[in-house]
């Protein structure tokens, strides 16, 4: 269970209610069924998440949310990931919500955020254009002012939660800087395609050809857009780190259980020292990932900003991605042939680890970003 949050009754209660939600939902089986159908969001489950308040975990109370922090968002994300819940919690309730909250369109927030909190409205964020590119400003998409609104052109890739999204938060160059726009899914000129991912979910590509957005649809003006997107991406990277910690935690747990029960040569395989040392090394990776995650959620909730925030987010995502991939790969090996079957849950965790570690920058990309930040004056130190 969660051990990255500062121990408190409130954190423990939240973690317990997430675990309870996962237990009652028999979600690993459900993840399998949705996978076969190529679906990733069951609207009934989504409403369930809404009723518990979690879709509004980061939404200020004045907009109907819980007004909590990254710590709580991470607790929810970790718990859902342990149960392989496929719904796009982080994509919507963390990434999209953080952008809206960090932006400067108060009227828009007042209209949309309450609908997100109740689960009625499910937005996804379309910001990235090239694999490996983590700079939110590196965009070729453009928005040109046009008859009281804007005309958008460009192509966005790697959109999580796109399958069920009702609308997209799109970044585009505008007036010499960056701005963010609200593009409903059925807008004329918007074309969504989906590519299947390892875990059965999808990555969306959004093509925009002369898509018209009304003036009110500018969510973030150039004055704040870049900073709002950068902050949202760092928060999301940290929360994906929490998901990865959940994935690796469960995969390691399954492996340790198996090592205790699987008997070969007359003993549990967990009694072979070669495997014991392997398990300890994996545990060590899990604890490193948990430690950096703990530091990150605490610092982000404390208001850490700028380059130090980016550096810490990159450390978290890099370690969590690397550790989750390693632990899940080794989990297959420790299970032997059973680990190579579709029936074995370990494979599902491996695939989720593949998807989460690639999304929002993999370990390599985040290490590169960390190195760039550390080389700047002021560097990665907070």
């Amino acid at each position, binding site marked *: 269970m969660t051990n990255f949050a500062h121990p408190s009754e409130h954190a423990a209660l939240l973690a317990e209610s997430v675990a309870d939600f996962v237990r009652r939902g028999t979600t690993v089986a459900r993840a399998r069924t949705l996978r076969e159908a190529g679906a990733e969001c069951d609207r009934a489950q989504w409403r369930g998440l809404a009723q518990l308040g979690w879709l509004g975990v980061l939404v200020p109370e004045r907009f109907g949310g819980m007004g909590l922090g990254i710590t709580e968002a991470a607790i929810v994300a970790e718990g859902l990931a342990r149960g392989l819940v496929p719904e796009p919690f982080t994509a919507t309730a963390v990434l999209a919500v953080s952008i809206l909250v960090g932006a400067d369109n108060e009227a828009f927030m007042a209209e949309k955020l309450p609908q997100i909190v109740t689960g009625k409205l499910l937005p996804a964020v379309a910001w*990235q254009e090239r*694999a*490996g590119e983590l700079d939110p400003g590196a965009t070729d998409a453009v928005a040109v002012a046009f008859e009281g609104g804007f005309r958008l052109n460009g192509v966005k*890739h*790697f959109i999580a939660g796109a399958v069920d999204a009702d609308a997209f938060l799109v970044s585009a160059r505008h007036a010499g800087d960056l701005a963010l726009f609200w593009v409903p899914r059925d807008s004329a000129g918007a074309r969504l395609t989906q*590519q*299947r*991912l*390892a*875990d059965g979910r999808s*990555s969306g590509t959004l093509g925009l050809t002369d898509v018209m957005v009304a003036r009110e649809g500018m969510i973030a003006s150039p004055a704040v857009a870049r900073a709002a997107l950068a902050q949202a991406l760092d928060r999301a990277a940290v929360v994906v780190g929490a998901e990865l910690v959940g994935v690796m935690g469960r995969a390691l747990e399954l492996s340790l259980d198996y090592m205790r029960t699987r*008997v*070969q*040569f*007359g003993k549990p395989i967990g009694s*072979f020292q*070669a*495997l014991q040392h392997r398990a300890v090394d994996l545990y060590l990776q899990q604890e490193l990932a948990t430690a950096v995650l703990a530091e990150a959620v605490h610092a982000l909730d404390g208001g850490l900003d700028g380059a130090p925030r980016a550096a810490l987010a990159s450390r978290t995502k890099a370690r969590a991605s690397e550790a989750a*991939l390693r632990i899940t*790969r080794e989990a*297959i*090996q420790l299970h*032997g*042939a059973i*680990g*190579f*079957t*579709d*029936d*074995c849950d370990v*494979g599902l965790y*491996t*695939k989720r680890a*593949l*998807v989460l*570690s*690639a*999304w929002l*920058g*993999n*370990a*390599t*990309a985040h290490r*590169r970003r960390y190195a760039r930040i550390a080389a700047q004056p002021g560097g990665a130190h907070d």
Partner: protein
Amino acid sequence: MIDYNALTDDAFRAGLRVFFEANYPRHLRFLPRRMRWHECRDWYLALSKKGWLAPHWPPEHGGMGLTPGKLIIYFEETERAGIGRMPDQGLTMVGPTIIRFGNDAQRRKFLPPIIAGEHVWCQGYSEPNAGSDLASLQTSAVLEGDEFVINGSKIWTSMAHDATHIYVLVRTDRQAKKQEGISFVLVDMKTPGITVRPIRNIAGHEEFCQVFFDNVRTPRANLVGELNAGWTIAKGLLGFERLNIGSPRRPLQALEQIEVLARARQLGDNPAFVERLTELKLDLADLGSLYARYVDKVRRGEALGPDVSMLKIWATETYQRLSELLIEAAGEYGAFEGEIPVGDASVDILSPFYTSRPGTIYGGSNEIQRNILAKYVLKLPG
């Protein structure tokens, strides 16, 4: 009858190359999975007609009777042409076993249908509770008159759903020490009492099965070798199999995929990537050197000792590391299923990841290989 061994190496190689290039179906080249019987039957029969199906069998049984040196050329050319793995247990395992340990009646009855493509064999060794510790197998065969009555189940049986016959290791003496009560028996899959349940693997393919035996009667005449001598027979068969699994060809394919991707994504400009790639290239090049040493041994007619285990370890783990670099180098594409377009080529990012997993599990897991090296090569105390 052609004496292939009298040809120069170059002439022999050229002949194979021309035939393979001209006759092996394009769409089956470098397949990322094992071929099903219905896909490769025509190719099997084409080889059979040419007399090139069984390179290592003696000519009197329909083989090419190749010397080790020529045999290695045959394997090299097979790999070069990207020829996939057929359900080949008849050719690689049962045939040679019957030739070496069987009697004349068995040779007459079972060898010609293998060459003719009428019998397709699968290997029934592993059981749910006997994997690494194969000698603890429990499937029993009890003699009743001139029949064995078999009860139990085998698992992970590759291609059992395509097979007409299965060779099984069965327990024929419960009192003896575990290795000494095992026999090697041939069974027709049409015998009443056999049920085959295909098992889906992690990549979604049905390549292996569980095979159930419920009072299955097989003639005593199908016992190969002496009663209770099955363990020695099974162990006596590891030769080229172990050399084959150490071949650099599979990992080389993964390396080629990385290079296609690296060109398209211009990763050559990134020194960290270049260094990592070079490290793995040298791992692979040095695998080639190690492999060549064993090939030379075989060519000289020397037996392979327990040290050949290191070839398996290095080959399978290098393959896995390459598959992991491919994913890392793909960035956000690292979790995409199927072929993704890169530049003017396309790359399947995940399939090397899946295909490289079982190499460290089957054929004696890499943990077991390390135990063998520690005990029999380094002679460390046990």
